[in-house]
């Protein structure tokens, strides 16, 4: 609430309002301004100096002052077409770093993107980006909470098949099982079968199916018993 009030005031004052200033955005903004510089070595220094906001956010030692200064106030100079192309290749690669999730991974990617200019200048290569095309995007509808077996909502899946992550028995030998998918199931009190598991949980493959009258059937692969269970988490 406070943040949105502050945001509103900034908007009214014609100042960009950032819901959250992202260091990588500040870095990219500064690195784009470096394009005023045509001289390749100076441009590279500017590019490195532009990384300062991300370094600062990660608690890393600051970039050299001269580099930072260049990024704050890049002097204009002509670039020959070849250098301009190399610059563009670096910036295109840097832009692709946005696919990365963590800030540290992003910064590593940013530095690695400078490889074409480093090569142009005969510098030792920095860390290389693997040139693997990005995997296809995973388009998810907003994650639906896993509600298989939980009472409140209509059931949409027929069964779960996975491994146990852990199991335990209470003093009445009623079992509670947590599966590797995070679901927790408890045997229904009064169920006629008794489980006698002794091996590590992960060695048991489990299948849970919908039974009649909103009940669930719990089976372990290799065993004939069918237990009645309820989902508890």
């Amino acid at each position, binding site marked *: 609430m406070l943040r949105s009030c502050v*945001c*509103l005031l900034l*908007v*009214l004052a*014609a*100042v*960009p*309002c*950032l*819901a*959250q*200033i*992202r260091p990588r*955005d*500040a870095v*990219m*903004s500064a690195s*784009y301004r470096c394009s005023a510089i045509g001289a390749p070595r100076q441009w590279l220094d500017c590019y490195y100096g532009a990384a300062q906001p991300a370094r600062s956010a990660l608690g890393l030692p600051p970039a050299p002052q001269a580099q930072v200064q260049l990024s704050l106030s890049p002097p204009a100079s002509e670039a020959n077409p070849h250098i301009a192309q190399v610059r*563009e290749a670096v*910036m*295109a690669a840097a*832009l*692709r*770093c*946005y*696919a990365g999730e963590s800030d540290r991974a992003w910064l590593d990617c940013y530095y690695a993107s400078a490889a074409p200019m480093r090569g142009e200048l005969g510098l030792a290569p920095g860390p290389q980006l693997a040139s693997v095309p*990005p*995997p*296809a*995007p*995973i*388009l*998810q*509808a*907003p*994650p639906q909470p896993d509600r298989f077996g939980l009472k409140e909502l209509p059931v949409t899946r027929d069964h779960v098949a996975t491994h146990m992550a852990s199991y335990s028995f209470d003093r009445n030998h009623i079992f509670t099982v947590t599966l590797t998918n995070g679901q927790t199931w408890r045997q229904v009190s009064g169920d006629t079968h008794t489980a006698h598991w002794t091996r590590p949980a992960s060695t048991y493959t489990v299948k849970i199916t919908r039974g009649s009258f909103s009940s669930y059937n719990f089976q372990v692969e290799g065993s004939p018993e069918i237990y009645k269970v309820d989902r508890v988490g």
Partner: protein
Amino acid sequence: MSLMALLAASAGLFARAGMAQAPAPFTALQAEAGRTAYAANCMSCHQANLAGEGDALPLAGKTFVAAWSNRTTAELYNTIRSSMPYGNPGSLDAKTYASLVAFILQSNGAKPGATEFTPASAVKISTIASGSVPPDIQRGIKPAQAATARPARGGNAADYGGPPPNADNGAGMIRSFGQTVVGSIKNYEPVTDAMLTNPPEGEWLVGRGNYANWSYSTLNQIDTANVHDLQLQWVWAMNEGGANETAPLVHNGIMFLGNTYNTIQALDAKTGELLWENRVGPAPSRPNYGGMRSIAVWGDKVYFAGNDAVLHALDAKTGKLVWSTPLSEVPGHNNTSGVLAVRGKIITGLTGCGRIPAKDHCYISAYDAQTGKQIWKFVTVALTGQPNGDSWGGLPDEKRAGAETWIQGAFDPALNLTYWGTAQAKPWRRDLRGSGNGATDYANSTVALDADTGKLKWFYNHAPGESLDLDEVFERILIDHGDAKTVMTIGKAGILWKLDRNTGKFIDSRETVYQNVMASQNPVTGEPVYRKTIRDQKVDQWLSSCPGPEGGHDWQAASYHQPTDALIIPLSQSCVMMLGNGSQTYFEMPGTERNMGRLSAYRTSDLKPLWSLQQRSPFLTGVLSTGGNLAFVGDYDRRFRAVDVKTGKTLWSVRLGTTVQGYPIAFRIDGKQYVAVTTGLGGGSPQDKPMTMLQKVHRPNNGQALYVFALPDGK
């Protein structure tokens, strides 16, 4: 002045004052009620001081009286009742309309009396109203208290702003804003400059397809042989209300879709599943208003400009707001052009900046795509002392209004120039504007700006001293013929222009519909000259204008079909009689056999006419042309069709839920080609003229949606 003349003038003044002193046929109570009704229903368009703007005519002052002095109060009542509120005429009760008439008359100096106004009262307006606007009206009345979905902007809201729409503003009832669905898209591929410069086949990354504004897709899976098998794949109902005039973008299998009410959605482009939605808001500031004609993707963000002239950046993976920047500090400024992403900058236009006094003027501006900080601004009005500043007839700067930019520009990466069209100077009529015969640069112009600095490289004024709401603001299309680099455009007057885009030099032009406004054209510069009666216009004179403000051409963009060098243009055909205050009556264009819609194709190398078809209903979408040699277009009468680009013959058509309006696009997912188009309502003349003139064409006043088509599997 001689004594006799002075006496005569004084007598005239006294007589007028005497006439205005005669009590008018309305009561003070009615006028008071009318003030409240005005604030609630009319102010958002006609302004707090009744001065109007654009299509919303002035309701007080000399312009109003010049138009209405010889007409009666009954005619005023009937006109308001039959045409207002815009988009929902006749929806208020009779008592409210009567009170509005009372308020308007009072705002023109009429004095209330003992008799209540009724629709039957037919008193000549000149006998009761002098056009003298009371000071409190001149200062602007206060907006009515109304529930707001978003806090009101600060500043001079009383001068420029207005209350949010009332319940009659379309069917849209969105009242809550914010992010409704948060996305979690993994492996989103950031959009790079290289991708925008050479868009990958199968994606639609820029509003008009590419930086050159071709609205063309190379995809050819759907072609002239199989298009008759095209099938609906999915439909997505969109927000109702506002003006639906948008182009989706498709990248990485994700469709980004702007809705009215300043809402952005991300959908799975194959299945239509919603991935995220952010109702950034606010609600449209007035009924049926606020197209979002383009959005942009760059890096990992989606960009759009809210109709309230605030630029927003959203995270493309989640839909969360990353930053917002106001385009202007002046309340009441708007944006309908949408945005263009160019090399780390977001470039956008501005509207709602046509009021006088002109605070800040209209401009094109650019922002850092990462942070939202403004990088440059180009004011589209030549001010005193600037180059071409002498083209406004000596008007002081604060009276130099207009030259809005309500269509996104084009970009030439090799020349690093961005090309935009500007609207006309305000008010429309030069006799009211006071600019004499001045060209009013850079209104009605193509402006070529350095994309890095916003500096003007050249401009070309297509309609010097424009006077009839015939702006030249629409898409600029970049086409090369060998080494010749050209920019083509077509404005409301229906003249197709071809310029050298390096220098702005005139190359050629051709009329595409009947026009009677321009009488001649300089053979070297191409500068057109209005016919004499337009040059000599008087405020109380009705002038014929063919085309009228529907055009000719309007925002519905043409498509350049590159393989055949054909420019395929959606055109409208209607004329108006226009009075000095902007009042219009509409009539069908001569020689069109009552057809308001035309689709024409021209070869751009020599402007040779290729083919043309006419139909009763105008076309309300841009044209999409494809590598399958098809051109897709939709019309007012709900039809979406595909024609053969070589002959114009219709090969497939389908009837949708309501008027087909927007910008159709094509994309490919998993090897399958899709074509998508929106249905929509809202907007100005392109909807208003057919609504009024097509007496037998009916379409529902709701049903804004996105439709997606493809061939059945195996075809």
